[in-house]
Every structure is written in structure tokens, then in C-alpha cells.
């Protein structure tokens, strides 16, 4: 549990600290993995497979998220030539 919590925290720090949107995305992947570790650990502890099933779902969601997210990054990069999140304020201006 502590392991997954620590990984989660690393992910959170990554999201908050880094400017590079790709690294932010990777941090999100780390967070999802932390969740997965938790789920699998519980499933092993409780001796049933439900945790693993949920982990499969999480992986599927992560894949979807990565695909769409990276698509957005690419589209954005093509227009703006940056991957710095601070400069991504289209909505604001």
C-alpha cells in the first residue's frame, strides 16, 4: 500500500511540477499504475480476481486516455510549436 501511495505521490508531484505536457501525461500514467498496484494487491490479499478485472479496465482507460491526449498534444504542437503547458491557454484569451 505504501508503495502504491508513494508512486501516487510521485505522479502527483510530476503533474504539478513539470511544464512539459508529455511528462505530465506520463505522471498521470504513473498515478494510474499506482491505482493498479493497489487493486492487484487487494485482489491477491482477498483471494479473488475482481481487483485484477478492474485493473484491466484501468489499463483500457489509460490506453484511451493516452491516445486521445497524445492526439491533442500533436494537434496543439502543430499549431503552436510548444509543449509547455503554461502557454496552453487558448480558452482564456
Amino acid at each position, binding site marked *: 500500500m505504501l508503495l502504491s501511495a508513494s508512486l501516487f505521490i510521485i505522479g502527483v*508531484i510530476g503533474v504539478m511540477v513539470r511544464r512539459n505536457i*508529455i511528462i505530465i501525461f506520463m505522471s498521470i500514467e504513473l498515478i494510474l499504475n499506482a491505482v493498479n498496484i493497489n487493486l*492487484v494487491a487487494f485482489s491477491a490479499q482477498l*483471494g479473488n480476481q475482481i481487483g485484477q478485472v478492474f*485493473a484491466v479496465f484501468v489499463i483500457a482507460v489509460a490506453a*484511451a486516455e493516452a*491516445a*486521445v491526449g497524445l492526439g491533442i498534444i*500533436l494537434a496543439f504542437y502543430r499549431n503552436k510549436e510548444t509543449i*509547455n503547458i503554461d502557454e496552453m491557454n487558448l480558452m482564456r484569451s
Partner: protein
Amino acid sequence: MAQAIAFYVIAACILGFGVLVISTKDTVHSVLFLVLDFLFVAALYVLLGAQFLAAIQVLVYAGGIVVLYLFVVMLVNLKRPPEAHSDPHRRTKLGFGLAAAVLVELGAIAAYGYARPATAFAMPAAAAMPVSGNTEQVGWLLYTSYLIPFEIASMLLLVAMIGAIVLAKREL
């Protein structure tokens, strides 16, 4: 005993690489560490008796998602570090603050857990650990009890796929 050692080694690797992922300057190195991290997570799954999930982890995460990341990094291939400008400490404090809050909370839970040892979870059976046929059981659950979530997940993937194609396509 051997299991415990393996667990701690793997855990240390996961955390270490996790730190490296978010602290490395070069994005490609960061992606590489992410792969290593995921591989160790897969190892952890094996240790926890979830071989199927471990294989899926490697296949989908390491083999699929991270390759995607690598592609994007190479496409937007930039030697100039994107964080060179605009004050880097603006949200750093917030980030560490939040992380500290989570840590404190966790500490509290842990302390609480130690204070009232295991009543809620009687830890039903470590004996019921599935040894073989892991894939079969997960599959069985997926296609019976969790069929609807499964279908929803597949729809989500489909939508994501279409969305990604639309976004990435240059002209419609």
C-alpha cells in the same frame, strides 16, 4: 522470505524509476525510465500472482502506450528544454504542498490501521491464492459479472481511437 526480499527490491526499483521519470531533463530518457518502471510493476504483478495482468501490462503499457509516447516525443523532437522559461517555482510549491498533504493523510491512515489492527479485514484467505488458471478466472469474471463494464470499456476505446485519428489527422 525470498518473496519479501523480491518485493522490496521491486518496490524500490518502481519508486526509484518513478522519481527518475519526473526528474529527468531529457524527455526521451524520461520515457525510457517509464518503460522500466512499468516492467517492474509487471514483475510485481507476477509476484502477486497475477500473471495475466503482468503480460497485459507489458503488452499494453510497455508495448503500446509508451511507444506512443516515444513517437510523440520524437515527432515534437525538441532539443530545447521546454521548461527553460517562465518561473519554474510557481506551482512547484503547490505540488509539494499537495503531496505533503496526501502523505500526512496516508500517515494518519497507517497509524489508524496500526492502532486498530485488522478487524474489518479478517484477511480471509491467503490460502485461496490462485495458483494456475489465472487467465481463465479473470476472463470468466470479465465476461460474466463485469460484461457491461467490459463493453463500455471497449466502446470507450473505440471512441478514443476515432478521437485520436480525428485529432491527429492533418486535414479532414
